[in-house]
Each structure stands twice: as structure tokens, then as C-alpha cells.
């Protein structure tokens, strides 16, 4: 909640008109989805699999330093592709329209310790619905950080840069814990809840398989290169973690992104929902390769407006969406990766210290709605 509401100049009617214009952009993409898009995702999946297989093959000889470097680089890219452009987007249902059971949100599993169905719940249902609503969207600070001036300060937050760094290094575990809502569920009363126990067991099984593959089987297959392959897979996981953590931080943390009060979303209309997504997300600018490696989450604003449109279409959608930001005099938050990462980290550091409560109150849409 920033002191000044950057959407205050819009009337309710304008907000609904904005919603209709966004719906039209969405409909256009849906009507033109087809063979080319299907060929795109199949190609990406096929390249990823071949890259992963080749990299792991090269790592069998990781004792030899050039093999280690090439294999580790390849495996890192393969893991990033798996999680970002492929996994994240398939699990969003972006490719469900193809009706290919092998590329469907209900059947896909990814190279990640959080099982797909648990991640889908916390990400698609909670984060995407309650985007940037403090106390509802746990993606904001992952429940361990202070991300808004209005959030009460506690001495624990002094160390939040450190928490954030640790979370970045072991991001996939952070996400698994967070999908399990460990913070809440480890309470004495909830710990024995059979539903929680079942979910925790599922995570346990997934972790076991992932660890066995990356840190036991593949190193064993490498024979004399056991230790170097182990180091290589660890490094690849670390790189993937740091990368996805950075990309995701850029999506909602940079300065200029709005957060929202819980009550401001009550009775939200479609137009208002769109507006919240527009103001609550930030993009990353850069090359085609950069967009690809972020799983097109560099088009975070477009992704939040249309989470189930195929990712390869976000670039063209972005042009139209940006024009709407201009038309409605809204601030399109975007910038190159280093700048956005710095901005997000800056916020983490800044809010680790207490601040004065902002004085000006956000004009409250909810009240306006009641008054109208």
C-alpha cells in the first residue's frame, strides 16, 4: 500500500472499460491458438529433454574439467527450462487446450521437490487469485520477510536479507515448505491433521526421488567421477534456484509495484481484478533468450492478467497491454534484470529496518463501491 493510489484518477466506468479491452486481447489469442503454438511447446520439450540427456551423459566424465563445465552449464539450463518455460506454464494449464494427455496440467510432473499438484494449489489458486494482497498472498515475502511499509516491524526482520539469500539458494525447498504451509501447519494442533500428513508424505517421497536421482544414481553411474558429478548436479540445482528466485523476486518486489489491503479486494469486479494484477506485477526487459530463460515470466504483468494463455504469446500481448497502460495513464513497471534484481533486494534491505508509518491513507475502492 503506497501512500498515493496510482489508480485514483480512474472512474469505475473506465476500470470496467479497461477490463473489456483486456478481455478482447485475451479472446484474440484464444481464437488464434493453433498448430504453431502446439509445435512450439513440443519443440521446447524435445530440446529440453535432449539437452538434459546430453548434459548428464557428458557429466559421466565430469572428472575431466571441460566435461564438468559443459555438463554443468547444460544441466543448469535444462533444469531452468524444465521449471520455467515448461513446468510452470504447463501447470498453469497454458497448454491444456491441446488435449494432449502428455502435456496437461493434470498429468505433468516437474524436476522440483514440490509435487506439481501442491504447487498448483498454492500458486495458481492462492497467489494468482490474491496477488499482492497482504496476509493472503504468501508469495509476498514467503511469510518470512517484511515487504511493505505497513507491515509491523519485528527484530527478526533485521536478518531478512540473510533469510532471503538462504531461501534463494534452496529455493525449491523453500517453495515445497511454503506449498505445505509449514509455518501454519507445524502448530501443535495442526501437525497431526491427516490431510497435512498425507501432503507432507507426498513431498517426502518427491524429495527422496529427486535427491536419489541427482545425488546418488547419477554420481554412481559416473563411476570414478562420482564426486565431481555430485558437485555438478548440486551446482546445477543451485544455479536453477538462484535464477528462478531472482526472476520471481522481479515479478512482485521491485519498487513501484503496489500491494493491496485485504479488504480492498472484497467485492472486486473483473475490471478491478485486472487492475490489481496490472499494478501488482513488474516486468523484465531484455533479449528473446532472456525472456525464454525466465519462462516468459519476464512478461509478469501479462502473465498475471492472463495466466492461462500460452507463454509464447506473451511478447505480442505485451505490446497491446502496454498501450493500455499508456491509454489509462498507468505506470508499467519494467526494467533490465540487474536493475530489477537490485531494486527488489534494495527493498528487502530497506524494510529490514523499521520505518515511520506512511501518513496518507490509500483511497479505498471498497468504500467508493459502497458509496456508489
Amino acid at each position, binding site marked *: 500500500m503506497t501512500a498515493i493510489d496510482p489508480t485514483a484518477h480512474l472512474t469505475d466506468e473506465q476500470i470496467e472499460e479497461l477490463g473489456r479491452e483486456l478481455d478482447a486481447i485475451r479472446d484474440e489469442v484464444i481464437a488464434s491458438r493453433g*498448430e504453431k503454438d502446439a509445435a512450439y511447446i513440443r519443440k521446447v520439450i524435445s530440446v529440453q529433454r535432449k539437452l538434459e540427456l546430453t548434459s548428464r551423459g557428458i557429466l559421466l566424465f565430469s572428472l575431466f574439467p571441460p566435461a564438468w563445465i559443459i555438463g554443468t552449464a547444460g544441466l543448469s539450463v535444462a533444469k531452468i527450462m524444465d521449471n520455467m518455460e515448461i513446468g510452470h506454464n504447463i501447470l498453469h494449464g497454458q497448454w*491444456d487446450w491441446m488435449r*494432449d494427455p502428455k502435456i496437461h*496440467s493434470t498429468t505433468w510432473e*516437474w524436476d522440483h521437490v514440490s509435487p506439481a499438484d501442491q504447487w498448483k494449489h498454492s500458486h495458481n489458486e492462492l497467489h494468482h487469485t490474491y496477488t499482492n494482497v497482504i496476509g493472503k498472498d504468501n508469495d509476498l515475502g514467503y511469510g518470512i520477510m517484511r515487504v511493505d511499509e505497513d507491515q509491523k516491524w519485528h527484530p527478526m526482520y533485521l536478518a531478512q536479507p540473510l533469510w532471503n539469500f538462504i531461501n534463494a539458494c534452496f529455493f525449491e525447498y523453500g517453495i515445497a515448505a511454503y506449498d505445505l504451509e509449514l509455518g501454519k501447519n507445524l502448530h501443535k494442533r495442526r501437525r497431526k491433521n491427516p490431510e497435512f500428513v498425507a501432503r507432507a508424505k507426498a513431498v517426502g517421497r518427491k524429495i527422496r526421488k529427486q535427491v*536419489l536421482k541427482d545425488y546418488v*544414481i547419477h554420481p554412481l553411474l559416473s563411476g570414478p567421477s562420482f564426486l565431481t558429478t555430485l558437485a555438478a548436479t548440486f551446482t546445477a540445482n543451485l544455479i536453477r534456484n538462484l535464477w528462478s528466485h531472482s526472476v520471481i523476486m522481479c515479478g512482485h518486489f521491485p519498487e513501484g509495484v503496489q500491494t493491496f489491503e485485504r479488504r480492498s479486494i472484497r467485492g472486486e469486479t473483473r475490471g478491478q481484478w485486472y487492475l490489481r494484477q496490472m499494478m501488482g506485477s513488474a516486468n523484465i526487459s531484455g533479449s528473446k533468450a532472456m525472456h525464454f530463460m525466465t519462462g516468459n515470466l519476464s512478461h509478469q504483468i501479462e502473465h498475471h492478467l492472463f495466466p492461462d494463455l500460452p507463454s509464447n504469446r506473451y511478447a505480442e500481448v505485451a505490446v497491446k497491454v502496454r498501450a493500455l497502460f499508456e491509454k489509462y495513464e498507468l505506470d508499467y513497471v519494467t526494467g533490465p534484470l540487474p536493475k530489477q534484481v537490485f531494486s527488489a533486494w534494495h527493498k528487502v534491505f530497506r524494510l529490514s529496518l523499521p520505518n515511520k508509518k506512511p501518513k496518507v491513507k490509500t483511497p479505498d475502492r471498497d468504500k467508493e463501491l459502497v458509496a456508489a
Partner: protein
Amino acid sequence: MTSAALRSRAWKLLELVTTPLLPSDYLDLVSPLRAGADLRGRIEAVHRETDDAATIVIRPGKGWRGHVAGQYIRIGIDVDGVRLWRAYSVTSPTSRADGRITITVKAIPDGKVSNHLVRKAKPGTVIQLDQATGEFVLPAAKPAKVLYLTAGSGITPVMGMLRDTKFADVVMVHSAPRKEDVIFRNDLHDLVADKALTLVELHTDTDGMLDIAELEKLVPDWAERETWACGPTGLLDAAEEHWAKHGVAERLHMERFRPTVVVAGEGGEVTFGKTGKTVEADGATPLLNIGEEAGVLMPSGCRMGICFGCVTPLKSGAVRDLRTGEITEASDSPTAHVLVQTCVSAAAGPCELER
């Protein structure tokens, strides 16, 4: 350890290597038709039969178990990037030496799959396949006299039979709008020249529709013949009534390509629990189509109510059987769900399916 047990051990080990994917996810990239893969086929050629019909030559994967003349297969093909499944009768004989199978498709107006297959399908395309199935087949003991009663694309399963099995006495009564619309016309006349077939070829544009009561004039001993009929609903309904009226219903075998839909009513909101989608449905569209349109993975088969390949648990609400109008309601028990055939059921008010 037996070799099968060894192999399954090895496979388990491979799964540990490839998790979260399966070894087959990698093998499919290079060898989609291999033994052990999901059954697929590769289109090898497309031969034009008439203006709007074509024969598709398919090389089935290693897992293909063969067919019986008259049976159909289901194919899953991507049309504009969307996987669509349809049933087609096998038109090649079971003895075909190169192991290929053929289907013959007639493009119907606005038909998604039929038009794609007839006009756009390219050799080299990999398609999904199901094993052959269907009861519309010849008996083990050869009947003395046979009648084939067909019209339009209904000739396809019968062509599969004609090419497969020779009988001493076979009559065929086939209708098509014009001479040039008769699929397999050359093949039929070759059989006639070889004295392997007696053919009554009707062109409905000039001769008018076949009146079933006139059949006696064309084939006086029709009632003594073991008969296989396939064609549009009108012809089949008339034949069914005619054979029953003459007390020889047991001699008539029929294959329908579409269900006989009689009723529609109020629709409702349909929720697909597993996929988490809710859509509005009218009372005439099968839930199978509604789900597919919404991107839900719906199992399907014949798409006309005979194979039960589409049954899905109904978790709440009610559905209407489009063939009879009968309403089925969800049971009160939270575990024992009623199963409904989605291909012939439409929403009858709000309902939830477990997909």
C-alpha cells in the same frame, strides 16, 4: 530370475534415473512406434477416392494386435494443435502383407477431423491409435448367402469385409448421390467382373432414396440372407423396422456412425472437479464435447454410446441421456459415484464430473 522379471527390474532402475519423467518420455522422442509405447501409427500415404473421400494408409506401431474385418479403430489426430479422437472402420483386409492398415474417410460439412484427414493430412504425421474393436464382424461359420446393405461412407466396414472374406453368394445394395460419389467404385466393379459380387448400385440423385419396401424387387431372397448394413440413420432405422416386421431381425447386423439423438432439455453449469474448470453447457451438447472444449482430459471411444470408453463419475447434479431423455442423478454417497456416458449425456441442471 526370469528375463521378464529382469527387464522389469531394469526398467524400475531406469525410472530412478529419469524421474520425474519416465524412460518412455525420452524414447518417444526417437521411436514413437516402438514396442511397449502407447499405440500410435504413422500416416504413410493419402489416396483420393472421390471428391470428398480419401483412404489413409497407416503404419501401426509394434503394439498393434490386428483387427477382424468390419471392426473400427479410433485415431487421435492433432487438428489446429488440438488432439481430436474419432472412430473409423478399417478398410484393408486382415491379410495385408506389408502390415499396414487403411481407413477411408468421407469429409462431412464442417466436420473437423474428416476434413482434416481428407484434405490436409500429410504422410509422415504420427497419430494416436487404439486397438481395433467392434461387433460388426463376420461370423466364424460362413453363411451361405450374404447381403450387404450400405449407403455413402457406410460402405467402409463392408469394404473391409469384401476384401477379406470370399463367399459363394454375395449381393450388395449400395446407394450414393451420384456415380462419382461412390467410394471404391472401381474395386466393386472389379469384384463384379471376377464374379465375386452381385452389385446393385443406386444413385439417389437420379433414382431417389431406396425405399426399403422395394428391396424385395432388387433382392428377392433378402430375408434368407445374413445381412450387414451400414449407412445413415434413416436407412438403418428403416432396415431395423423392416427386418423386425418380417421376423428375421436376427439376420440383420448394423453399424451406426452416430447416435440417434432424440431429446434435449435445459442445460446447466458443469464443473470439472479435477481440472478445476466450470463452464456453461446447454442441454443438447454432450458433456464429452463440453469438457473437451474446456481443455479437460476426457476419455472417449466411439462417441456414440456403445463402447463405454467415456464413462465418468458424476459427483453431483443430474444429466440427461440424449438418446432416451432419461435423467440420471448423482448418488448421495460421497464415494460410490454414478458413472455416466459423457458422449451421449448432456447437463440437466448444474452438475459436477470427476475430471
